[in-house]
């Protein structure tokens, strides 16, 4: 079935490449509108304080200032939140972390706006700051009064400073540990990681004469922006149109709102377009970050290495607002068992409000943290049992029709192939791959994971234009990963037309079908399948037209390469899309518009197999898998670890575009290396101590291994478009654990706390580890 026009499986460069290399791609900061003003925010200097009042006189008196908004401009019930409605667009009545936006100004220039924001006086009454989950759980002071009354989309069990709690159980955990020959228990801690998308967040809002808002912003979902602005301003969604420019990377921090509702409020007040672009420092201090986890993990095994029982307990720092945190807690726990056979499992945890910036979605969504714990401990178990860590895993991984935690059906599973491919490619078990340089220690480390790519809703519309070419309209933002290209390839192949004949519509809440967002590795799988469905609908209409034109039965027709419908087995008896479109537009049947939408409806938990309390997402699944081997060198003088080589195999079902799949794997692995070895947001008391790229470092060309080998495994998932599953996150998830395992094998030091900084490794080697 590989017709010449086939796009799926081809290494197609991203469609918008040219505008990007010519510097003509427009990101939010590059947009200008007639009469546009510039916005700036005032941030809270206190972690927790009541707002007694504002003095805006000085700011309003400054020449060039057109509007000022504060929490008073946002009415009480108008709170946002994907899971718990607990957040106003600006601090209202209270500030809850250092750096929280308290007020905002629209002025002729950014400089004036920033100066005016500084000139706003806020009367604060300080409250005790709660800076850790433990502290917050113990305190009578509540960061949100009446969290119990907030609207929630699931049974969160919120109470006091407890934002939510979730628990999964399968089998009988106590019996499991009794039946185990050996039980291992460890505690792990992970740090806050900043997304550091190279593009800082920003938004541009404009109001038309009817008072309707148009909002462009750095975002991962125009529909989430629309919904959140509507909630924040208390206006109907129909009053808001959201569009997207090119997005300069996101990784989760642009999924939920940042300054869109603030810019919108300023635009409404100033009756002028307002653009607000955060500085890098503001982006660090007020957008969102990866959750610090505290993890207790207990695993019971048989002497022969059979896994019997696993209990995982986590405590998450939520920050000041729930944002996506309940989802991260729930998903982290769902992944905490790992893609292994464990008859007895209990995964439970709590999410606690603190006076820090909100934590939220970040590539991996809780999985990298729990995988660090699980995959590190499995290596130690293997060592104790005298088994090879990969052999131990192969003995216990999910295979055949085994079920992941929760008991849902796996529709494809390439995990074993991932493990075997990286094992063989890296020369695992064949002695030291390459000798350590003098003064260095060197070893390989391994880890694996499973990660979902199916959740929530997506739609697609395929229109055949008058000349027979095709417009594809989905609501999915391309945040740089390449979904515009991949979805166009899917559409082209579904209709057997050349890729050039597909035009891709930029997401627009006025015209695009709904899409939850570009998140959770879901776009290729979810939206791709919607595209296949919409193309099938268009195909039906095309065939109906053709059957009338060729006077034969629809059943006797098939699509043939190049954009035509032909009689089966008689390719020369065909009729092109152009002819069909002419007829449909001008004579009979009407323009051909195929549409399809769906919501992922495979229950997360099968009640016959597992139980769940506080489940934030009842329907989530479609598992991708990955395995990685890293070759790590540790410097004996400084303790610094460097990844010299890496082999990452990912089961993506089917690679619609291998070039872009490799990009996701390579980028994910290097972001994981940053998380494992370098990156850490550090607080000095209540304030972030390193909110700049001078002090917060990410990998450069010198820290990323050039010898990074992406290996694509294709298990062909029957549910996915052309068999495809997601690849956005699986590459990153196992990296910290693999590096920790390599450090252990190289130095004998097991580290339980991320990041594995040179200081921690050296202390470990010198036995002075605290």
């Amino acid at each position: 079935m590989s017709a010449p026009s086939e796009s799926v499986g081809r290494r197609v460069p991203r469609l918008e490449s040219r505008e990007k290399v010519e510097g003509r791609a427009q990101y939010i900061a590059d947009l200008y509108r007639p009469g546009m003003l510039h916005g700036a925010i005032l941030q809270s200097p206190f972690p927790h304080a009541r707002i007694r009042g504002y003095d805006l006189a000085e700011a309003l008196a400054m020449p060039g200032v057109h509007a000022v908004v504060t929490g008073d401009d946002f009415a009480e019930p108008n709170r946002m939140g994907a899971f718990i409605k607990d957040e106003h667009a600006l601090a209202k009545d209270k500030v809850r972390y250092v750096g929280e936006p308290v007020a905002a100004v629209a002025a002729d220039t950014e400089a004036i706006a920033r100066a005016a924001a500084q000139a706003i006086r806020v009367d604060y009454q300080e409250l005790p700051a709660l800076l850790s989950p433990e502290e917050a759980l113990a305190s009578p002071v509540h960061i949100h009064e009446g969290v119990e009354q907030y609207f929630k989309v699931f049974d969160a069990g919120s109470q006091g400073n407890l934002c939510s709690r979730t628990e999964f159980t399968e089998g009988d955990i106590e019996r499991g540990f009794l039946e185990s020959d050996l039980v291992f228990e460890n505690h792990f801690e992970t740090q806050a990681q900043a997304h550091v998308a190279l593009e800082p967040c920003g938004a541009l809002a404009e109001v038309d004469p009817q008072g309707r808002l148009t909002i462009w912003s750095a975002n991962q979902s125009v529909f989430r922006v629309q919904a959140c602005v509507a909630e924040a301003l208390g206006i109907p969604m129909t009053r808001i149109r959201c569009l997207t420019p090119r997005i300069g990377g996101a990784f989760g921090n642009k999924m939920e709102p940042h300054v869109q509702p603030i810019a919108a409020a300023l635009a409404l007040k100033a009756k002028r377009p307002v653009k607000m672009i955060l500085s890098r420092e503001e982006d660090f201090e007020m957008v969102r970050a990866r959750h610090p986890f505290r993890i207790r993990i207990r695993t019971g095994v048989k002497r022969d290495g059979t896994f019997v029982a696993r209990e995982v307990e986590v405590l998450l720092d939520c920050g000041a607002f729930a944002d996506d945190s309940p989802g991260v807690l729930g998903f982290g726990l769902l992944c905490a068992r790992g893609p292994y056979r464990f008859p007895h499992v209990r995964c439970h945890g709590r999410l606690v409000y603190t006076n820090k910036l909100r934590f939220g979605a970040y590539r991996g969504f809780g999985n990298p943290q729990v995988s660090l714990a699980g995959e590190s401990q499995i290596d130690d178990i293997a060592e104790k049992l005298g088994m090879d860590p990969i052999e131990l895993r192969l003995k216990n991984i999910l295979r055949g029709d085994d079920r992941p935690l929760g008991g849902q059906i796996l529709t494809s599973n390439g995990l074993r192939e991932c493990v075997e491919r990286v094992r063989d490619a890296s020369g695992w078990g064949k002695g030291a791959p390459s000798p350590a340089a003098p003064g260095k220690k060197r070893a390989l480390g391994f880890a694996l994971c499973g990660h979902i790519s199916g959740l929530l809703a997506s739609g697609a519309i395929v229109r055949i234009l008058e000349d027979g070419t095709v417009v594809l309209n989905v609501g999915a933002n391309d945040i740089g990963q390449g979904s515009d290209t991949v979805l166009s390839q899917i559409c082209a192949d579904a209709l057997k037309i050349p890729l050039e004949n597909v035009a891709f519509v930029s997401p627009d809440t006025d015209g695009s079908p709904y899409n939850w967002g570009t998140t959770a590795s879901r776009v290729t799988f979810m939206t791709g399948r919607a595209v296949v469905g919409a193309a099938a609908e268009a195909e039906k209409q095309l065939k109906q037209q053709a059957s009338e034109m060729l006077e034969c039965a629809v059943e006797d027709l098939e699509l043939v390469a190049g954009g035509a419908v032909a009689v089966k087995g008689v390719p020369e008896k065909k009729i092109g899309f152009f002819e069909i479109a002419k007829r449909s537009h001008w004579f009979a049947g009407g323009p051909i518009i195929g549409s399809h939408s769906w919501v992922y409806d495979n229950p997360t938990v099968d009640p016959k197999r597992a139980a769940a309390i506080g489940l934030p997402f009842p329907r989530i699944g479609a598992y991708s898998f990955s395995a990685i081997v890293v070759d790590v060198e540790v410097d004996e003088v400084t303790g610094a670890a460097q990844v010299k080589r890496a082999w990452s195999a990912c089961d993506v079902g089917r690679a619609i575009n291998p070039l872009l799949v490799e990009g996701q794997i390579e980028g994910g692995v290097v972001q994981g290396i940053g998380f494992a070895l370098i990156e850490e947001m550090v607080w000095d008391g209540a304030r972030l101590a390193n909110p700049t790229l001078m002090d917060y470092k990410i990998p450069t060309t010198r820290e990323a291994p050039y010898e990074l080998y992406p290996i694509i495994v294709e298990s062909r998932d029957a549910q996915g478009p052309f068999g495809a599953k997601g690849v956005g996150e699986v590459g990153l998830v196992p990296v910290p654990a693999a590096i920790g395992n390599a450090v252990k094998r190289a130095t004998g030091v097991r580290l339980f706390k991320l990041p594995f900084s040179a200081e921690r490794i050296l202390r470990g080697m010198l036995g002075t580890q605290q």
Partner: protein
Amino acid sequence: MRIEGNFDIAASRDAVYRHITDPGLMARCVPGCESIEQVSPTGYRAKVTISVGGIKARFNLVVEVTREQPPGLVLSQTRGEEGSRASVLSADNELTLVELDPLTTRVSYASEVSVTGRLGKFALGVMKKKVGAMGMEFADRLREHIQTQAVPPSQAPGSAA
């Protein structure tokens, strides 16, 4: 950031206590302090300049004594900002006096300092050193003043500075 330290002064605890509660003397002992004026029984207003290398920041501070236990303990809160409001400073301070012998007093100070805004983003490690050095300088000046009884506290120029 937290700074703490202690030093001994050859004077009775009452005498030391009297001095450290004398705004005029404090004005002369706190490094970079231009003036302190008492604005209420427990409230003071001060102007303090902090400079690191070429960077100078002039803070307008309000000091509120939150707890006083003569002659052993003073708790206070310092809040303030640069004139331009480019940086905001807050500090919670604890000063304790312990009598080592009738003529020797140990002064211990601890302060949890937080600076946000432009200075909050500048070399944290160096700022810690700077503030720590200010603490020591304060100790030296105070010791010198008290031990040499430079000025009887009663005649201190208060906010004259």
